[in-house]
């Protein structure tokens, strides 16, 4: 319908579509039943044969991730309002298809459907990086897609294996069967877990699978980076929560020590590498490695507090890192470079933009009244309950994040104007102010009103952990009869104290 040259209307239609999507997704909230720990608002139709269904639903884990997706897409469209001038139509088509794919991944409850969305999502991202990216875009795009495909194809084999065991692709049914009927040998469980985990670990990306990320982030256009960091990385951690833990609890527990160590290495390594980057966008990219290390650490601590923290941190990272990429993108629009050396003293010509930059940096490094703090705090509290040492190492990551972000801010914004050209740069435009203001409001709201979110996550995470314990008890009981018993470690359900602590903490901050 729209002509290729009519950029204005293409943008408007894309924006309108994505905002409509966001408004519709907001209706999820009132319809979401707090007391129900299972999947809600389900839709289930037969698709291919008897086995494959079009089965969708949301629960406390996915609901906010969906909102995050629908929220970030209009932001990404606004952010590319002026920076995308070529092949405008294709770009926004890709962006909206990408949104469909991501939401599809979050809501599908059928393994086959999940895999379809998981793969379909790659292609628009591939094009976004490859066509509208920066200098080394083709290399980055190919690296991105090959890495992800390697992981996901093994997951496909695992999905087929599960189908042959249970005769269905339906997630709730498989879960039930694994919990009650079909029993896996420890090796089989570990292999299945490994196949799923590898796919998700590459997506997250967990150290040492992270090498695609800096390239993809750096080369992608701003909107691509925002979506990539904001939502796509969460698909990995979401997958771990949705599949790895509830389906294969024994294997998850067996692998947890290794994964915990990798997550910590990721936190510290990502932070250290970020510190020494000379490219601002690359620096922000490496913060993702570090921050998502936290999320993985939280997930594999196996208790409510840490897992809620992990989900919360997923949302935070989406908002904060998304905002950081937006700010970096705005700098790039003005100067067409990411080199930190090219900046310096920018607070003089553009005070508003730099103030926002500082603000989102503070949120990203987890300054207390802001959102990042809640997530990291919950994770660390939860992790501390089960692994003191993990928590200790994790805290070092929090300290390091203050170093690299503040140092970056100092080099970009403070001091004298280093490059003469920068003296005349325009400050944030109305559109940019609007984008950043919206992001900041969300950052503050998520910082002070966290129970609003955690309250909705709690039933689902509790139910998941309970189900894991039951399944493990059953395996343990079965293996007691077997010659070589291997008692699994007990799961610590988090003490409610942590919630109260958090709630009071928040109230304390609201009062001046």
């Amino acid at each position, binding site marked *: 319908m729209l002509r290729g040259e009519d950029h204005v209307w293409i943008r408007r239609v894309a924006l309108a579509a994505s905002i409509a999507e966001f408004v519709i997704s907001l209706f999820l909230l009132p319809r979401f039943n707090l007391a129900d720990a299972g999947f809600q608002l389900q839709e289930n139709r037969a698709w291919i044969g008897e086995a494959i269904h079009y089965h969708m639903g949301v629960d406390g884990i996915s609901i906010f991730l969906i909102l995050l997706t629908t929220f970030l897409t209009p932001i990404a469209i606004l952010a590319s309002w002026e920076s995308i001038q070529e092949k405008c139509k294709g770009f926004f088509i890709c962006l909206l298809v990408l949104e469909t794919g991501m939401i599809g991944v979050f809501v599908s409850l059928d393994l086959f459907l999940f895999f379809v969305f998981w793969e379909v999502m790659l292609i628009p991202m591939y094009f976004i990086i490859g066509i509208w990216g920066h200098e080394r875009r083709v290399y980055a795009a190919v690296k991105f897609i*090959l890495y992800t495909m*390697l992981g996901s194809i093994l997951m496909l084999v695992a999905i087929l294996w599960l189908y042959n065991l249970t005769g269905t692709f339906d997630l709730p049914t498989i879960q039930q069967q694994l919990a009650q009927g079909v029993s896996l040998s420890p090796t089989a469980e570990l292999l299945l877990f490994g196949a799923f985990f590898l796919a998700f670990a590459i997506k997250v990306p967990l150290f040492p699978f992270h090498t695609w990320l800096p390239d993809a982030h750096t080369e992608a256009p701003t909107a691509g980076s925002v979506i990539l960091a904001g939502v796509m990385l969460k698909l990995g951690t979401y997958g771990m929560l949705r599949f790895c833990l509830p389906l294969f609890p024994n294997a998850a527990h067996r692998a947890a020590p290794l994964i915990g160590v990798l997550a910590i290495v990721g936190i510290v390594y990502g932070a250290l590498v970020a510190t020494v980057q000379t490219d601002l966008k690359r620096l922000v990219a490496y913060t993702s490695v570090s921050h998502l290390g936290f999320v993985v650490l939280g997930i594999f601590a196996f208790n409510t507090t840490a897992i809620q923290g992990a989900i919360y941190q997923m949302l935070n990272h989406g908002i904060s890192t998304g905002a950081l990429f937006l700010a970096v993108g705005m700098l790039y629009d003005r100067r067409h470079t990411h080199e930190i050396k090219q900046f310096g003293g920018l607070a003089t010509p553009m005070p508003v933009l730099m103030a926002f930059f500082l603000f989102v940096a503070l949120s990203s490094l987890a300054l207390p009244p802001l959102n990042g703090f809640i997530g990291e705090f919950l994770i660390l509290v939860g992790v501390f309950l089960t692994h003191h040492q993990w928590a200790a190492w994790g805290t070092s990551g929090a300290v390091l994040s203050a170093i690299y972000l503040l140092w970056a801010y100092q080099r970009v914004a403070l001091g004298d104007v280093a490059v003469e050209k920068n003296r005349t740069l325009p400050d944030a435009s109305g559109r940019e102010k609007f984008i950043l203001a919206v992001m900041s409001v969300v950052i503050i709201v998520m910082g002070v009103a966290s129970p609003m979110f955690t309250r909705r996550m709690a039933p689902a995470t509790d139910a998941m952990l309970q189900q894991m314990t039951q399944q493990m008890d059953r395996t343990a009981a079965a293996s007691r009869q077997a010659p070589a018993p291997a008692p699994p470690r007990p799961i610590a359900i988090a003490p409610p104290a942590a919630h109260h602590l958090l709630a009071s903490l928040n109230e304390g901050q609201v009062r001046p």
Partner: protein
Amino acid sequence: MFLSVFGILIMLIDPFVSQGRKRVLGWFALIGAVFSLHSVAAMLHVAADSGAAGYSGLITADYFSIFVHVIIMLAAILVILGSMDYLDQEGIQGGEFYALVLFAAAGMGILASANELVTAFVGLEMSSISSYILAGYRRRAPKSNEASLKYFILGSFATAFFLYGVAMIYGATGTTRIDLIQTAFQLNPLDPKAGSSVLPIFGLGLIFVGLGFKVVAAPFQIYAPDVYEGAPTPVTALLASAPKVATFALMIRIFYVAFGSATNLWFWVIWISAALTMVIGNLGALKQTNVKRMLAYSSIAHAGYILVAFTAGTDVGIAAMLFYLAAYSFMKVGAFLIVTHLGQQDEQRLELKDYAGLGSKQPVLAACFALFLLSLLGLPATGGFLGKFFAFQAALDSRVIWLVVIAAINSVVGSYYYLRVIISMYFWDPAQDYTPAKVGTPLTVALAIAAAATLYLGLLPSQVLNFARAAADSLSLR
């Protein structure tokens, strides 16, 4: 039957049509192919009634052969549609081209429904000889002649192997009817250690050589890249799709039905061949910069994926193979037809760099090509993905786990070279000196059919899948 009649008719009419109007014969051939597709529908009634065998048991019209027939006919139709403009452009328009395509398709039809090995041999020869000539149809091009000769010499060897194998099985069982061979082996089970089984086992081995050549299974794949590259591109589209489908059908009949009581005899042979085929095809394709040659290697790799389903040894495996073959034919023919169009005069523009910027020059054509490539790659929502999906599932169902893992890793390797073409089309700057010609009407129709079928098989596969299952059930396994 219809095909041969129309083929002969075309040959007869040909001299009377003036040089400038030979194109009409193409439409005529098309009518013939559509008619024969229609007559397949008549077969459907026969099959529904009794699964009757015709010509005193030499030919059967069961759901299995119908399924294969439909694929072959559609592939032939697409090829005819796709070659009209091509032949004009190369100045080799002529009735015998279409007649040969029809003869080849008729031979493949016989191959697919043969219930008797000598009949199968007749079909095999009919399709092979037609395709030898077709491969050399660009008479003035040395490459085309080379392809024809290579295909002819090696192909004759392969059919000879096949015939020798048939003779040995006849010697052992006293019959060439597939159902009777099956009964014979059920009465006297094959035992590798017993001396009396040497003959049929050796015969089966020879048959595998002969048919493995036709489906391009390793280690008999050597000829494929050269022949596929040298043959005129529409012919390559035909060679890469229909004969494979027909030969796989015959292989299924021989290995699953006649030798169905001795799956353990051939399981490892197929396993190793499948693994080799995939690895060789994919590694070979990786370094190609010629898109036509790359697609030739990719069709080797795809034969490997089909062989993965072959190792399953169950009716689930047969259904998976049939589905794969259907999806594969459409996407492969579609891809080769686009290469045909973009090749321009004398097939000069086949390199990756010639595809640069196609995404902005001809967006619809590029989108079609991207769809076929993504389907070959195995991206969900396309027929290629579901084909792979069902193939892997069938193999896993029979506990063939490691082969599936090899296949999975291979398909990631494969994605690299398919994506390279997409990179070239969309990410590279267009070459300034060159604008591809407009797509003619027949080719548009062909591409639309192929693209629609690829999407249909990817999104709503239930119907085709059910038919494939019915086809698998119609074979009397063991």
